[in-house]
């Protein structure tokens, strides 16, 4: 349920951005959330939409979430692959567990569309 605090923190920073850019309102915000980030996307979106009416310029802000899969590179055979499981992954080609995480921990705001 830390999704709620992260949604709140996003709304606060959008509110500041709207002031700073002298926007009439914020219309869209794009975020990227990795599968390993520890965020449940549905809860995050729910919290964002439930709380946004409290912010004067964010009532119609649409939250667009890009979910980033977890991808690894095998350090033994060089294979790059995506996995569904979040723990103890192994290489889909050679079954090595000597892996490097390439993506999946993202938790970022990409950009924001405002109406000025």
């Amino acid at each position, binding site marked *: 349920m*830390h999704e709620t*605090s992260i949604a709140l923190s996003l709304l606060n*920073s959008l509110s500041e951005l709207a002031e700073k850019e002298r926007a009439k309102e914020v219309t869209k915000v794009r975020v990227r959330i990795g599968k390993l980030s*520890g965020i449940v996307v549905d809860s995050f979106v729910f919290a964002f939409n439930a709380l946004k009416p409290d912010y004067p310029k964010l009532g119609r802000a649409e939250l667009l979430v890009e979910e980033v899969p977890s991808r690894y590179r095998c350090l033994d055979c060089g294979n790059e692959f995506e996995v569904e499981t979040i723990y103890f992954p192994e290489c889909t080609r050679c079954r090595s567990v000597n892996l490097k995480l390439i993506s999946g921990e993202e938790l970022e705001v990409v950009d924001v*569309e405002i*109406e000025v």
Partner: protein
Amino acid sequence: MCDVCGCGHDHVHENRAVVSDDSTRRVVEIKKSLLDENERIAEVNRKHFDEKGVLAVNLISSPGSGKTTLLEKTIEALKGEFKIGVLEGDIETERDAERVRAKGAYAVQLTTGGACHLEAPLVHKGFHALEKQMNGGAPDILFIENVGNLVCPSSFYLGEHVRVVLVSVPEGPDKPAKYPKAFKTSNIFIITKSDLIPYFDFDVEKVKREALSLNPNLKVFVLSAKTGEGLEEWFNYLKELVRRKKGGK
């Protein structure tokens, strides 16, 4: 650090560029972590701890794993040598702060009022309150006892030097597999209530192996606050960490 208090600080939006522009709508590029604000204040906390020579330890576990009991034992053992401060994170009540105060630690209760984890700004406020309690002094060791929860606390850096994840034997052996993030982000893994191992299907070696496969750098302790098994090793390790902190300031 005090420039953070009162939320009068500047929120800097660097890395921002306008990438498209029509008459009324504009896209502003942000490229910032959603946890940016927490992390910024956590860094301020960290700097403050460093300046005061405080070793900050963040304790994460499920409810009932024995965090507070282990703290009580640790305070009893080390209070002669070090000043110990505790920030007790709970959803409600002062109970844990009272428990550790009774053992001789300085303690501030942080009640989150429903939130399932601690965040850097609350720790910041709590540490100021602790300094006040100590008449402007600072502890040698600061324990931050997080809210009992193995999920959310692992996403929030508080400025700690060391993160400890605890699992008690009755909770079962599958915690590393089910809550990988807590283990990946920690430095120390403590298995508590080791006196109960004979009564549970808890294969210590297998649990250690699984935890280490998630994070090969984990330092593992197996201990029982009840029988005292393994406590000495834990105390000695903490002492060594404090010495290193004071030496390497």
